[in-house]
């Protein structure tokens, strides 16, 4: 069973790879919209990749108001 820290690290790595932002520039409490420089359309793209990576279904309303990687990882964790 993954810990929340494992999941957070995986999300950071996924975001880093997909949006081509160096991993060392990302941290769990970052606002991913700002750090990655993405809009809601690109956030949906991230959601799709998260669903594929973790093999989960994460309704986008679960992400309502979620802007940081740590909270995002918590939402993922609850579906694992």
């Amino acid at each position, binding site marked *: 069973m993954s810990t929340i820290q494992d999941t957070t690290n995986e999300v950071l790595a996924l975001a880093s790879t997909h949006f081509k932002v160096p991993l060392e520039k990302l941290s769990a409490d970052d606002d991913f919209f700002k750090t990655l420089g993405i*809009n*809601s*359309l*690109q*956030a*949906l*793209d991230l*959601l*799709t990749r998260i*669903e*594929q990576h973790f093999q989960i*279904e994460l*309704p*986008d*309303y679960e*992400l*309502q*108001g*979620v802007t940081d990687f740590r909270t995002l990882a918590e939402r993922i964790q609850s579906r694992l």
Partner: protein
Amino acid sequence: MKTFQGKTLSWSVEDGAINLILDRAPCNEIGSLTLPELELFVKALPELQPDTHALIISSARKEGFCAGADLRELYRESQPLPAGERAGRLRDFLERIHRVMNAIDTAPLTTIAAVEGIAFGGGFEIALACDLIIADKTARFCFPELRLGLIPGFGGIPRLKRDLGNAVVRDLLLTGRSINSTKAQTVGLVSQVVSEGDALRIARSTAAQLKKFDRGTAIAAKTFIKPIPFDELRREIEIFCELFARPVVQEALRKFTESTDALPYLP
């Protein structure tokens, strides 16, 4: 017209398949520019059909397949109008897009939506009018209209209900959540899920296979299995017009219009 290059879309014929390519920034929103060109396409279909067996609809936009109706334009253009004229213009728009969707739905061709990225609202409804949906792994499908106090207006509910179980329809409609291509295939919406960026290539390969079949048989099979829910489509227009007139919808659309985000109704 065998080929066409417009401001929002183009079409051409290759190997017996019509390639209709949507290409309007940012994500093929359907408004006063796209609708007339879609109508031109529908008008050209009888001329294209004798030499073709398939229609493939795809997007040239990296942002996705289609984000649906151009609600910002619809709102901005309707605001200065008196209520009666506003309602009349909306109804006219819906009647026109329904004629386009019905023509695609009933075309005596095998129609394929090659979906990459988002197919939201009207974009989802275009895909639903097609016989087959081939989606890549980035595809997402959604009816977000309830978030704005509306229902899908381009024939989405009756067509989704035609294809899927009612519980799935309610889930998508009432939660307004988006689903990825894997989920869409699991519920029976998508026929093939392919690698990222490969939807159009696989759609063309599928169209090439269909060419081997007798055309008359394919049309007979399609006509038999794909009834058009005309009564429900008419009812949908009425419900949409009733909802659109409410202040709560106008307020939601105002907020939507003032936002600069790509999909301001999403988190």
